[in-house]
């Protein structure tokens, strides 16, 4: 079996009396994107900091690309890229100086470091700002430069700690498409986020974390299916038969359907219910011209798992720093 990109078991980290991370297990196969999803203070960043060798775990072990994060930290560092929550580029250097410096630190010759910096600036659409100090960059540009800085050494594994916090929607979409390109090139990504749409868009698998513990894991679809039922939305050809349809549906489903505009919504608590509903309507001669199966949103998933609502898109814009 191929060695996983990241394997962690029982990671624990205390800060004073607070337990930031309380026994986290993770397994990420190579070339996959894992989204670590959770509210502020759930322990996402601390988990990433341990895996990126910035903080030693108090208990538990982890291997990144097969190397132990404590005993072989240096080998780990040669294979990872880290893009932090707060863009960690040097504000007083230009974009190209920042990337040049990283290249030099990684042992590139002067000319190789310059070439690599140029490539990355082009790829991340920063060519025009290459010779300007990063102080004057917009949030999105800074984040792209930060991501570029993490990629100078062509890492196998990339840690993205809340990559789109504080970005406007356009900048987020651009960043997401850049991340997808990296994944297409075979890079393994561990992404932390408190935004469900981000995890849903980028991740192959989501691990939900709260109070330092993993509370759920699975593909976005599996997670959505696990929690809460799917909803069947029905549109009728003849709106006058709405009441009749309502009573048939409520008889089979065991609860009254909801009216959503011109459509009726029924929660499907079991799979066999779907054909039964359709058959009953057909037998009554009620024609259906629209059938939609709706997964629960990740917001609903999160509420069900943690008992607390998650940050919404509107708040998201407001929390930019």
């Amino acid at each position: 079996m191929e060695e996983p990109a990241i394997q962690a078991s029982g990671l624990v980290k205390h800060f004073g009396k607070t337990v930031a991370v309380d026994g986290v297990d993770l397994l990420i196969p190579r070339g996959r994107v894992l989204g670590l999803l959770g509210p502020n203070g759930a322990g996402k960043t601390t988990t990433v900091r341990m895996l990126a060798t910035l903080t030693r775990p108090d208990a538990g072990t982890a291997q990144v690309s097969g190397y132990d994060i404590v005993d072989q930290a240096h080998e780990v560092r040669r294979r990872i890229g880290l893009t932090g929550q707060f863009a960690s580029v040097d504000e007083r250097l230009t974009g190209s100086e920042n990337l040049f410096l990283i290249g030099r630190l990684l042992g590139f010759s002067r000319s190789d470091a310059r070439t690599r910096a140029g490539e990355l600036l082009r790829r991340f659409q920063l060519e025009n700002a290459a010779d300007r100090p990063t102080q004057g960059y917009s949030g999105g540009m800074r984040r792209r430069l930060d991501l570029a800085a993490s990629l100078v050494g062509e890492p196998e594994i990339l840690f993205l700690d809340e990559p789109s916090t504080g970005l406007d929607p356009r900048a987020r979409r651009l960043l997401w498409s850049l991340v997808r390109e990296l994944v297409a090139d075979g890079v393994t990504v561990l992404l932390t986020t408190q935004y469900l749409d981000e995890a849903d868009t980028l991740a192959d698998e989501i691990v939900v974390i709260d109070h330092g513990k993993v509370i759920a894991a699975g593909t976005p679809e599996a997670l959505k299916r696990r929690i809460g039922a799917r909803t069947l939305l029905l549109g009728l050809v003849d709106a006058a038969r709405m009441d009749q349809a309502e009573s048939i549906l409520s008889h089979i489903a065991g609860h009254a359907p909801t009216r959503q505009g011109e459509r009726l919504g029924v929660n499907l608590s079991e799979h066999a219910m779907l054909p039964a509903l359709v058959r009953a309507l057909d037998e009554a001669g009620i024609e259906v011209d629209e059938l939609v199966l709706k997964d629960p949103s990740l917001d609903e998933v999160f509420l069900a798992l943690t008992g607390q609502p998650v940050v919404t898109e509107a708040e998201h814009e407001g929390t930019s720093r």
Partner: protein
Amino acid sequence: MRPSPALSQALDQTFSLAWRSLVQLRRNPWELGDYSFQPVLFLLLFVYIFGGAIAGSTDEYLTFMLPGIVVMNMMFVTVYIGHGLNTDLTRGYFDRLRAMPVARWAPLAGRILADLVKQGWSIVLLLGLGFLLGFRLETSIAGLFAMSALVLVFALAFSWLMILVGILARDPEHVQIFGFTALFPVTFVSNVFVPVDTLPHWLQGVVSANPVSVLTDACRGLLLGGPVLSPVLVSLAWSLAFVAVFLPLSLAALRRRLG
């Protein structure tokens, strides 16, 4: 498998990081001003405004004060090492370096190296201006080099205190506030601007014991003649003491801060 970067690679990394600190100066003219215009302004002000009153003539005062102002300026320049380090710690740049295969000591060593370049620049600038204004070397070129080397050694040692401040402070502004507030009394309550025997008796003991005074005495001896051995040795002893106390404290504080 190598456990850590080879020494030559670590040195390359140190040089690259020192380059970074120096390139930063282009974007921060105020910092450059602190090494350049501020001491020059101090020198001109004191020599031409107070010089006549304090020493009877501006020429004599220039001779008296130039070694002292080199020492005083050196102390203030060390604040920037703490400021820069704190900026890296609070803005996440230090984490970026730590998540890379960079030698653990290279970020600090790079800063210290860059700091020495800045210190050297300040010394050359102040002495150069002094010579232009009529300062005369009474000893020898060797004395001049020995004096510069002594100031650099002291700067290197004293930097560890500012490194500690840089690690402990909440943000870069606090480093600056602390640095300047602490250094003003320390540098003024010394023999940099006035001879010790003009001070009230109770103050003379404090001023003579102040390492700034000791180092200034050593620099005067090396440039102008007079007792050299004792102040140089005491200055080196102070340097050793600063390193012995603040280097381990700084490393412990850094380890604690990084968790």
